């Protein structure tokens, strides 16, 4: 996937990305300060926002194969189960009950299958939103700070789930997070944003542990990225 001369003006904030390449089948980490353009870029890729200028070359990827989860996921006014199977229903796919129950059980949501989804805790809602995003087996998944509110145990489960999926399929992921250990555990490539621009982009080993640009170096030191050891 390539992004060329992408511009988006949101009034108080303007995004301007000259060129960006997202290798298919890899896990990409988006890092940067709050308001640096990570989420806006992700929303443009997901088709939630339309660019003012420039283009995104999807390399044959259809918009229905891209999904995104956010920090405050939207829960439908219905049960946990109905929330989970919504992406299947709109695609006319019959839910595989055994598979669904196994996924819910693994993530501690089986007992809450018939519960009103909005009555779940924020961590449980985030777990449900990730499972819901993955249930229709998308080609491209954007996880925007969704892993932040999870307990250490749930986070480890999801990290393993993402890595397991990655072993058997070639999904492309964008993980947006302020937590260095999540980026380090999961990502192959890291992209650093600042003031609506892409500053540095490349393999994690370089951007994460040996950045070229001083602004990236300073950010890494502030966020204590340097204290994280290479995977």
């Amino acid at each position, binding site marked *: 996937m390539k992004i060329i001369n992408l511009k988006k003006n949101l009034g108080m904030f303007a995004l301007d990305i000259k060129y960006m390449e997202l290798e298919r089948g890899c896990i990409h980490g988006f890092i940067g300060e709050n308001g640096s353009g990570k989420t806006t870029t992700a929303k443009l890729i*997901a*088709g*939630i926002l339309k660019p003012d200028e420039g283009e995104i070359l999807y390399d044959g990827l259809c*918009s*229905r*194969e*891209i*999904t*995104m*989860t956010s920090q405050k996921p*939207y829960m*439908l*006014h*219905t*049960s946990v189960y*109905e929330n989970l199977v*919504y*992406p299947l229903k*709109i*695609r006319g796919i019959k839910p595989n009950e055994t598979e669904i129950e196994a996924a819910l059980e693994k993530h501690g949501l089986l007992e809450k299958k*018939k*519960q*009103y989804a*909005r*009555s779940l805790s924020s961590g449980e809602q985030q777990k449900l939103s990730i499972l*819901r*995003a993955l249930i*229709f087996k*998308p080609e491209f998944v954007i996880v925007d700070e969704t892993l932040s509110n999870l307990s250490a145990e749930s986070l480890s489960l999801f990290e393993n789930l993402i890595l397991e999926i990655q072993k058997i399929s070639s999904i492309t992921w964008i993980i947006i997070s302020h937590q260095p250990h999540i980026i380090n555990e999961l990502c192959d490539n890291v992209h650093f944003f600042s003031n609506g621009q892409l500053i540095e982009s490349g393999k994690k080993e370089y951007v994460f542990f040996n950045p070229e640009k001083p602004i990236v170096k300073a950010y890494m030191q502030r966020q204590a990225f340097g204290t994280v050891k290479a995977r």
Partner: protein
Amino acid sequence: MDFLNETISLFSDAGIVNAVNVTLIMSAFSVAISSLLGIALGILLEQCNFPGKRMIIRLNRTLLAFPPVVVGLIVYLLLMRNGPLGAFSLLFTIKGMIIAQTIIITPIITSMVYSFAVKAAPAIRVFAATMGATKQQTNILIVKEMKYEIYFAIITGFGRSISEVGSVMLVGGNIEGRTRTMTTAISMLKSQGIYTEGVALGIILLAFAFILQWAAECFQKRESEDENY
């Protein structure tokens, strides 16, 4: 005992039963038409951006405060024999009353649905986009997610319809057995000094209002987040 018998006989009085029937038929049809128009207009207004949108919203809000008796007068002038729609012979019929009621209720439902949609629809639309929903699936989801708010708007419209008197008096003419509603009957009975039947009709209206409010409250209760399915 005599009082009880008198009350029972009042409720089984053909005139009262007929007024209740006319009121319910008129309200049901006018609310059904207004709901279809109001829901579609409310959601379209939220979705579309076009020049003059703010003016339409302002105009719709103005219509909320439009006196029903003036609506009745306008519809009367349109439907009278020499009026532009006189050929349809709708004056002093339930159909004519439904037209007047639809004009009164549609802005109420439109305004309520629009207000709810402004708050809820953007998040639903973003969610639907991330799930890969088509435009049609997104619109269906918006209506589904707002169903309780929409029910509430419909109930409010129905409440307004059964309690309206000015326009139905003018357009319907308060003809016994044909266009006499509960409210026009009460108005007439009062002017004739017949208070017992008037109070009986008032009690029925009050009962309807209570049931409607109860239903509206039930729909609002779904916000309680501990509800289980």
